[in-house]
């Protein structure tokens, strides 16, 4: 159980400008004793995790550790998967989003999501942004202004302002992903979940998304799943490390949360041997 500051190689040291994560977190979401099942298979077990308001939290860990599963549970996207079941409580502003009277559609409006592969609708750039406000029946003074505002916040406006009526599929991968972020912003969520948003992007497009995340955290709470440890170190205020462990009985591997702390602490002073092995590249 080394706790030396040399645990992480130099390039993995937390370097983000915002990593002065306040010791006191103002939680906007709380995950309490959550198990997620797919049918009989328990994908993650007993996760306890809080997400701080206007912070960026990274979920890292090897494949199959359940980080994406947890992410999808946070806005009830798991509902769309046959047989998926969440036990425990996930509270948003203190209210259990798996409560009896909760409308999952309203949950998804307040907690937006950006996916691994950019998935713009095969519509115009404008209609991509206007889609969310239209389907949720949002009262909008001027749709044009909302589209401009969303695209500006996603740092895409200048690149697309002259071709709003053109298909979103004509954009580059990085632009498409920023469009998807703009689309998520358009319904004014409090939280944005990002499932490996840069996995299919080149390093320059990745850097732009990371810069964008730093701007967005002024107004939104961000939870990001990433395979890329440098990325977690660069962008996140706090980091949660998950791993997969063979469960008793059968050979299934169940994901669990190993360690959660400020990004600086996780990368420079990991308390758990498994965390240390993972971030120093000895495992995973």
């Amino acid at each position, binding site marked *: 159980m080394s706790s030396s500051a040399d645990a992480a190689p130099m390039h993995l040291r937390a370097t983000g400008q915002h990593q002065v994560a306040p010791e006191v977190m103002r939680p906007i979401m709380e995950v309490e004793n959550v198990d997620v099942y797919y049918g009989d298979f328990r994908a993650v077990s007993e996760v306890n995790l809080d997400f701080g308001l206007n912070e960026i939290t990274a979920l890292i860990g090897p494949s199959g550790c359940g980080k994406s599963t947890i992410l999808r549970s946070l806005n009830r996207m798991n509902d769309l998967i046959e047989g998926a079941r969440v036990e425990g409580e996930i509270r948003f502003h203190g209210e259990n989003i798996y409560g009896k009277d909760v409308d999952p559609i309203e949950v998804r409006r307040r907690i937006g999501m950006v996916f691994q592969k950019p*998935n713009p609708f095969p519509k115009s750039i404008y209609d991509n942004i206007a889609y969310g406000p239209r*389907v*949720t029946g949002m009262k909008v003074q001027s749709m044009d202004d909302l589209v401009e505002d969303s695209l500006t916040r996603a740092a895409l406006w200048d690149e697309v302002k002259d071709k709003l009526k053109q298909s979103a599929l004509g954009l580059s991968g990085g632009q498409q992903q920023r469009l998807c972020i703009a689309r998520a912003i358009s319904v004014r969520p409090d939280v944005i979940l990002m499932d490996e948003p840069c996995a299919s992007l080149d390093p320059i497009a990745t850097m732009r998304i990371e810069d964008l995340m730093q701007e967005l955290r002024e107004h939104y709470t961000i939870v990001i799943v990433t395979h890329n440890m440098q990325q977690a170190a660069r962008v996140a205020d706090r980091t949660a490390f998950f791993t997969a462990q063979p469960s008793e009985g059968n050979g299934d591997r169940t994901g669990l949360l190993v360690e959660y702390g400020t990004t600086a602490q996780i990368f420079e002073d990991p308390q758990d041997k498994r965390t240390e092995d993972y971030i120093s590249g000895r495992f995973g």
Partner: protein
Amino acid sequence: MFAGRARPGEAVIKVVLRVAAAVAMVTTIGIVFALIVPAIGFFREVPIFDFLLGDRWAPRFADASFGVVPLVTATLWTTAIALLVSVPLGLGAALLLSEYATPGLRKTLKPILEILAGVPTVVYGFFALQFVQSTVFREWLRLDTGAFSVLAAGLVMGIMIIPTVASISEDAMSAVPMSLRQGSAALGANRMQTSLRVVFPAALSGIMAAIVLGISRAVGETMIVAIAAGSQARIVGGPLEQGQTMTGFIASAALGDSRVGSLEYNTLYAVGLLLFAITLTVNFISIRLVRRFRQAY
């Protein structure tokens, strides 16, 4: 170092595939020729405008008249009624199967639809004539209609076409990537909104293809209309009237003993050519529409 190795199997496969493609093409060209040659003989004797615009169809009378409009009106009625039935129900079934049904429900519903597609059209014809027209329309509803009606034929034809429309548009909807549905759901759209505003437009070209195929089948369907729509070639003014469609005429006249090369014989081909032209036009228009409105993913 990279010297080529002969691959005789590849060459054989190429030839086989080309032959398969050629058979389809040659057949189409052959059909067009077989239609055009007698039709030219027909138009030597009957001016084309008398044929297309004339409102009296009496090819076998002493004072023969070859105005095709009555046949076209009957075809339009039966086709329109069939589409009013098959497009909404077919698309609804497709939407159910692709967006709403659990795997279990899908496993039950698809075979039922396929059974519907497997019923011989002559059975549908008698169903239209005996049950729909005679029992339902005349006995139960006491409608003011005769032994035949374009409504009965059109309705039953519509039911027959449902599986075609449903199965092709379901394929198109199922092919829309899951990621688009997830993206829509993540924005707070419900399932119906996702289906209608994301899946439907993205699958539009396949859906249009399904509708066009439905139209082609309705225009070309013969047995049901020959049995249930009627056999008198008069302009059809309402759905409860009887009427002979273009295909209905071809079926009844082809049973007769018209001599090869006679005007009566050539008449069949003129009507057949018109049928072919209508189907082709529908195809072209729909391809254009699809190019314009489709949302390729």
